[in-house]
């Protein structure tokens, strides 16, 4: 019986439900009869003088649902009828937004990320600016995330989402490596990521460029927040993707060597940095080949601080130091030799 699903609006209603629960003896294998409940409620209503209480109780009665079946339900906790992601708060957020209360803006990586397949492997590139609305909150963040020793992933979109999702899949890949005893494949990472993102129907705002080299060869994939993927020889994502794609479309050719590839990737990222407001600062590059990987952090720094005082900044002396005395802390902990502290 679904006494628990009563719509609680006031403490008085809670008192009624508590009374009902007391009546439901857990040791007796029997459910409360609907009639019993009505009697209890009526008694409460009669004894209470306030009209308010009565109208609320009538509301309570309306929302009580009596199921014909008699099944043993021990759970008192309210669970959603179906499992999975609960979208209840979305309605409330919509209502608040209509009244002008907007949620805080996410820390996004308004970004330029690119990937390129060349002769022996994959080159990934990214800019390093993280924005919070119109403000640059991190001038030198890392957008190329580690997935496996042979797989790296660039992330655009909400920073928390890209970090969390790549971290999670990276851990899953490691467990899988232990389980199988083999090097991870890029398609594994791809499937894990796209399953997760599709499950959340685009609410996990992560747009990724996944690249790596495994036994089957070099691979490059793009993954969109709703869970669709593309397999491409060159790809760009993020707000600066059009600027970077313009460079790729005009300068890509077959059979690129490693240095040519790095140069093309750097040029594409620079195009994003200088033509898109959401991207900026430095260029990160990651080259993955069969032999191994090379993570070139801040490979290019085209935006250094222009006017820096060579003498540095001398903070004005405010208070005079009269005396400097160092007293070493007395050790209160005795170090026991040998023996594992955890051993019982």
């Amino acid at each position, binding site marked *: 019986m679904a006494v628990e699903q009563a719509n609680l609006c006031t403490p008085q209603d809670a008192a009624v439900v508590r009374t009902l629960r007391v009546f439901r003896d857990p040791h007796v294998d029997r459910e409360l009869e609907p009639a019993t409940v009505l009697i209890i409620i009526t008694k409460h209503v009669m004894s209470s003088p306030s009209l308010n209480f009565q109208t609320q109780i009538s509301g309570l009665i309306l929302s009580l649902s009596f199921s014909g079946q008699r099944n043993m339900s021990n759970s008192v906790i309210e669970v959603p009828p179906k499992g999975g992601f609960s979208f209840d708060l979305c309605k409330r957020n919509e209502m608040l937004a209509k009244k002008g209360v907007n949620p805080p803006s996410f820390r996004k990586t308004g970004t330029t990320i690119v990937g390129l*397949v060349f002769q022996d492997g994959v080159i990934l590139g990214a800019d390093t600016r993280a924005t919070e609305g119109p403000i640059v909150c991190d001038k030198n963040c890392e957008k190329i995330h580690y997935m496996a020793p042979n797989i790296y992933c660039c992330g655009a979109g909400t920073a928390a989402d890209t970090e969390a999702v790549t971290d999670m899949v990276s851990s899953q890949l490691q467990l899988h490596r232990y389980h199988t005893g083999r090097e991870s494949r*890029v*398609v594994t990472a*791809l*499937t894990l990521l796209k399953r997760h993102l599709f499950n959340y129907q685009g609410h996990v705002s992560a747009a990724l460029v996944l690249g790596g080299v495994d036994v*089957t*060869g*070099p*691979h490059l*994939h793009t993954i969109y927040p709703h869970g669709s*993927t*593309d*397999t*491409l*020889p060159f790809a760009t994502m993020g707000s600066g993707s*059009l*600027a970077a*794609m*313009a*460079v790729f*479309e*005009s300068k*890509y050719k*077959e059979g690129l060597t490693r240095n040519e590839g790095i140069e093309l990737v750097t040029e594409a990222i620079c*195009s994003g940095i*200088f*033509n898109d407001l959401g991207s900026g600062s430095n260029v990160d590059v990651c080259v993955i080949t069969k032999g191994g990987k090379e993570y070139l952090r801040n490979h290019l720094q085209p935006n250094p601080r222009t006017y820096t005082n060579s003498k540095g900044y001398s903070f004005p002396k405010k208070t005079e130091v009269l005396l400097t005395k160092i007293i070493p802390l007395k050790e209160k902990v005795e170090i026991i030799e040998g023996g594992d502290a955890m051993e019982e």
Partner: protein
Amino acid sequence: MNFMASKQPENSLLGPESDSQRTLYPYVTGTSVVALKYKDGILMAADMGGSYGSTLRYKNVERMKAIGKHSLLGASGEISDFQEILRYLDELILYDNMWDDGNSLGPKEVHNYLTRVMYNRRNKFNPLWNSLVLGGIKNGQKYLGTVSMIGVNFEDNHVATGFGNHLARPILRQEWHENLSFEDGVRLLEKCMRVLLYRDRSAINKLQIAKITEEGMTISQPYSLKTYWEFSAFENPTQGAVGSW
């Protein structure tokens, strides 16, 4: 409470004038125009497509026209509004010729006129739904400017409208320099138009390039760009990743 969706929130101040006369949404649209200054004048490129929503309805729309002796106008956006602008400019040039004083309107003047027209229309909530590119040369002075549908105007060494801003401007910023030769300018414009053809869904492979110099305006015959689709990496991209796409 009135729940009916009212289509006249901003028109309430204007009384009985209905919206039958205002451009609320564009219907037949042209896509980007790209232009740059070169040694002898201005080079401008635009394709010949007029899209009706997502259909490619008209494939022979000339979106670039000469204005007077010294200017060249290219437009993207609503084609009917572009034709209206051409009528306004026709009248302007006609009146200028009637003065018969040996003086003629240069590109700077025409650009200013267009800015005023576009901004005033926008203030009346009845915009001409176009992004215009105005280029020309008069007395050795090259001029290249742009006006948007809300009246934003500026002049620069290279301009683009619509998607061209995102795809062509980065290329132009990197590769444009003073005193480009005619061939180099055309090559650069073609590079931009090719990227637009690859990545803009409303672009078609039939374009014209117009040039304006002291001698006058010439506009090329429509031609198409060579595109390359044979990269081996695109032939079977999911070879190694069976099951993905």
